[in-house]
């Protein structure tokens, strides 16, 4: 177990956040625990092309997909469940805060309108701020697919945002989620 504790300490937060945002919900902790155990058992296969984090996240992504399969459904409420309630870092301009918060809720509502594949790419690439390689590993896609899918998903998101107005209905749905 040489040094594995170090890797646990270093990567648990990202792995957990990834599992939550990919829809593992309350099972995120189990997913990450399982991923760390499997990662250790497979260390012999580790080649280090894109770093340990990408390698671990690939297992986290896979475990989360297995979870969706076993549930036969996906926790579509994940983004709604996690958005909005926590005050972010103190805004530079306090008057900007309410507007920014509304904009974020609007953005979440727009993300819910994308299909899962598009949303997952945006979640990994931007919300989790993973690299293209890490996103590819996590979602078991090629880097080319990540690039093109992210491009299309952003375009679609922009279109959704352009059409939608931050109406009361959406705001209520977000707050109630």
């Amino acid at each position, binding site marked *: *177990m*040489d*040094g594995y504790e170090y890797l646990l*300490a270093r990567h648990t937060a990202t792995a*957990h956040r990834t599992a939550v945002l990919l829809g593992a919900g309350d099972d995120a902790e189990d997913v990450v*625990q399982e991923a760390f155990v499997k990662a*250790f058992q497979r260390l012999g296969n*580790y080649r280090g092309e894109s770093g340990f984090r990408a390698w671990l996240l690939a297992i986290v992504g896979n475990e989360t997909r297995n979870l969706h399969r076993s549930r036969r459904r996906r926790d579509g409420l994940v983004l709604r469940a996690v*958005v909005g309630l926590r005050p972010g870092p103190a805004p530079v301009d306090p008057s900007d805060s309410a507007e920014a918060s509304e904009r974020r809720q609007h953005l979440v509502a727009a993300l819910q309108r994308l299909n899962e594949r598009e949303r997952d790419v945006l979640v990994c690439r931007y919300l989790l701020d993973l690299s293209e390689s890490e996103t590819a590993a996590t979602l078991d896609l090629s880097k080319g697919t990540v690039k093109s899918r992210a491009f299309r998903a952003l375009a679609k998101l922009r279109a959704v945002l352009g059409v939608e107005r931050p109406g009361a209905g959406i705001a209520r749905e977000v707050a109630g989620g």
Partner: protein
Amino acid sequence: MVNPTEGSLAAELRELGRHLDVPEAPDLRPAVLDRLAAPHQTDPAPRRRFAFPRRPRWLVAVASAILVCALVAVSPARAAVADAVDGLLRFAGIEIRPERVNPELPAPSPLPSVRHAGLDEARRLANFPVRVPDQLGEPERVSVADPAPDGSPRVVSLFYRGGAVRLDEFDGALEPAFMKQAQGAEWVALDGYSALWFPAPHPVTYIDRTGAERVETARLAGPTLIWTDGSASYRLEGVATREEAQRIAESLSP
């Protein structure tokens, strides 16, 4: 990227990511390490659920992660882990090199500028807390070595059982003070800390204040447990079993 609008939307999504209220990550180390310690177990160990985030333990984890800047690279799997944390081989102020060396070593010679001291004197001189394991009690002999210009020793050694057991204490948080060449080291969980256990005799060399290896101090060390409590590093040598070494390590009194 090319399209400025796309760039700002991407930035907005990143910003959203920072504002998401994701539950705090639990400390998974105990559960994972338990499961890894029993690799032949067929059904998974009971999974832990914590009612609230255990922030203090997490901070300890981060603190120890900073100290554990490296690993023993021996098997391919271990090499992978070492590679993943950029291959440095340091733990608790001790540098560990995985190669096997010629076991013919010169007769043991002391650390630089070593001299006997009383326990109280060593405590007064040292810049780190000198702690005594309750399991072993008052040391039979104490030595201080490699003093700084102000007289504070870099290493304080406590001797027991006629010198067969020694506990080296030093401030190893900054740079390594010993170099070990060893294979087959294993991680051991102490009460709140990690330790490395070297079951087999192995060569150990002192690295002095200037960073130079003191080859003349090279000697074969018996089974050894090394660990750190964050303020000092410890190296317990000469206890035959891991269990006893662990008990002694956990009995260090302030």
